[in-house]
């Protein structure tokens, strides 16, 4: 026990002596948490909208006014010709383009219907779909008022049937994406810090040559690993605590569920990450290699965690891969406990899987650490 305490002391000293590292460990993640949490929204707004009006009548102007009034479309550009509008779209200045054909009003009055050209930049397919819905909605509402408002014909028609859908967004009525993103990004940052620090730790001693000195001492393998793990575990828990405080104070994130439960889960989760880090450290020869491998897994863990894009939409084989992604479980648990108030029973599957993962990874880390080089 005493041996472990000495190793822990040594590790803490090394961490706090390195003045260049301290801001990276403690300031950078929190700064990113506060800034980047505002970026992650799929909401489609401020759509870059342009139009070509070849008709110049009260009808065409009224239609354009509808777009002007909408909160989704706010940058309106009036193009004199189709060619100029297309060039603007190529340049990326316009994403939705409305083309009103010549004699629009006259033909509409005569033939009772008319076509309207809409061009949408569809590189971001999902956003294009939403933009299309917005355009259709505005035009439909315009259609309904067309008869009475513009052509002053008395309104007598069969009433169409109407299915009214009422969307209810539970746990987050205003669809504030920050309540979801802040805890999620906090998870990512805690994971990255602990993984990178532990991943580079033993390999650094290898590269500099100080590992040999430790190897010739009577320190046991498990003592050494525990001594290495503990300081990073403390840093991880500390970061999480400060992060949660910031989430509460700055973003006013609701914390409905039990905080001790959250901490219980996190304490096990960080062990998983540290185990992976030490395992990488044991298997590599230089810090560069360790860093590349740690980077490789972090990018996969982050992008396949279900935080930014939904897991259910991935192909089956990719969903199976996500089963091995610790971040996925952490994001799920964080969401369930903090926002829904789920209890121990609800998160039991995630908790038991994480515990198993922690035991396996740390077992591997101890096993793969060889005292002979």
């Amino acid at each position, binding site marked *: 026990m005493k041996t472990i305490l000495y190793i822990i002391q040594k590790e803490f000293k090394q961490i706090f002596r*390195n003045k260049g590292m301290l801001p990276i460990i403690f300031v950078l993640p929190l700064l990113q948490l506060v800034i980047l949490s505002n970026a*992650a929204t799929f909401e489609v707004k401020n759509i870059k909208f342009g139009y070509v009006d070849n008709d110049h009548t009260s009808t065409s102007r009224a239609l354009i006014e509808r777009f002007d009034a909408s909160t989704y479309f706010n940058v309106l550009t009036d193009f004199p010709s189709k060619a100029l509008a297309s060039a603007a779209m*190529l340049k990326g200045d316009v994403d939705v383009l409305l083309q009103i054909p010549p004699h629009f009003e006259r033909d509409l009055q005569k033939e009772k219907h008319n076509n309207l050209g809409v061009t949408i930049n569809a*590189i971001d*397919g999902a956003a294009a779909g939403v933009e299309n819905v917005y355009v259709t909605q505005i035009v439909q509402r315009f259609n309904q008022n*067309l008869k009475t408002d513009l052509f002053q014909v008395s309104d007598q028609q069969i*009433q169409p*049937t*109407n299915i009214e859908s009422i969307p209810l967004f539970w746990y987050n009525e205003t669809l504030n994406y920050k309540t979801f993103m802040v805890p999620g990004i906090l998870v990512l940052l805690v994971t990255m810090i602990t993984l990178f620090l532990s991943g580079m730790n033993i390999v650094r001693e290898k590269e500099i040559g100080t590992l040999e000195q430790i190897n010739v001492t009577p320190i046991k393998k498990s003592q050494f690993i525990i001594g290495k793990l503990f300081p990073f575990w403390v840093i991880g828990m500390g970061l999480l605590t400060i992060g949660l405080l910031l989430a509460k104070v700055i973003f006013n994130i609701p914390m409905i569920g039990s905080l001790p439960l959250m901490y219980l889960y996190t304490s096990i989760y960080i062990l998983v990450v540290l185990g992976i880090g030490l395992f990488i450290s044991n298997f590599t020869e230089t810090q560069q290699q360790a860093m590349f491998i740690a980077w490789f897994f972090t990018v996969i863990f982050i992008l396949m965690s279900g935080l930014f894009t939904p897991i259910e939409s991935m192909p089956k084989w990719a969903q199976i891969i996500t089963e091995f992604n610790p971040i996925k479980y952490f994001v799920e648990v964080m969401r369930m406990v903090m926002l829904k108030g789920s209890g121990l029973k609800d998160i039991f599957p995630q908790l038991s899987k994480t515990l198993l993962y922690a035991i396996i990874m740390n077992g591997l880390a101890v096993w793969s650490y060889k005292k002979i080089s």
Partner: protein
Amino acid sequence: MKRFIGFIKKEYYHIFRDRRSLFILFGMPIAQIMLFGFAITNEINNVDIAILDHSKDADTKEIIHKISASKYFSINQLIEKESDIETIFKKGKVKAVLSFENDFSKNLNKEHKTTIQIITDATDPNTANTISNYVNAILTQYQKELNKDVTIAYQIIPQTRMVYNPELKSVYMFVPGVMTIILMLVSAMMTSISITREKELGTMEVLLVSPLKPFQVIVGKVFPYIFLSIINAVIIVMLSIFIFKMPIQGSLFLLALESILFITSALALGILISTISATQQTAMMISLMGLMLPVILLSGFIFPISSMPLPLQLISNIIPAKWFIIIIKGIMLKGVGFQFIWKETLILVGMTVFFIGLSVKKYKIRLE
């Protein structure tokens, strides 16, 4: 000049002797682009939903049928009472519940009006919103079928054309992004430790007493990695063309030049990190912690920049990846020529010059 070539040769030997790192360097981006190209999408597929049907009549059956027939949703279970919603949401698998009111068909036929509640688990607001939109689209379609015989007196019909990506494939959106992220991070990481490594292993002293000028050392360090990163870029572009069927509408030559420019700017950023940090560990932490999330979130790779709050839109301008994503999407999908992307190109050139200039200035010729 001869000295400079000698230095570059030394760097080449260093890199190519370390087979394990080389293997990692080329293997990982391939694995990542394959994985992410298939797995990352911001549309929804097969989302589990539950149904709470209070009326169980012809219309609700038809709507449920339409919902389950779409590829977006799969019906996980039918529930009987309101209180069940809470229970299944807490378990976490079901993301939405459709609740039909009593006498759905009767209200529809008699009063021409009826309601459905779309209850979504909005702990993930992005997905919740998408689900709600998709259900609405299906309902609107059904309503249109019901109203076939009713004609509105005057009607404007929007004829929508989806340009650059008519099939709305999410691969078109994400492959350029993944490519950018991989090139950016791999390049910056490679050079970020190149000078700190010499500092840490003690060989920096040798380098400093040599007659090489700081500028030569810095360019000599970047140069071999440009070569490596180009190979990486070529592999990634080949994969995106042959596996993900990405079109290249514009000029391949222009794409190659722009890629080299972007790689150089990322490598130069790495060198800058290298000159200002004392140990490899610090350099790596800066390039990994400092770059990873900002590049993923602020480059427009997943989240549209135009929807972000204004301060973040301004910050996104200093991310080189943002400009490269605009450039490659332009060349690959829109088929634009240089006249449309000269501004973005100029910004990348400016950033590269800035990074290299600052590195030369920060490069200390004395050891502390």
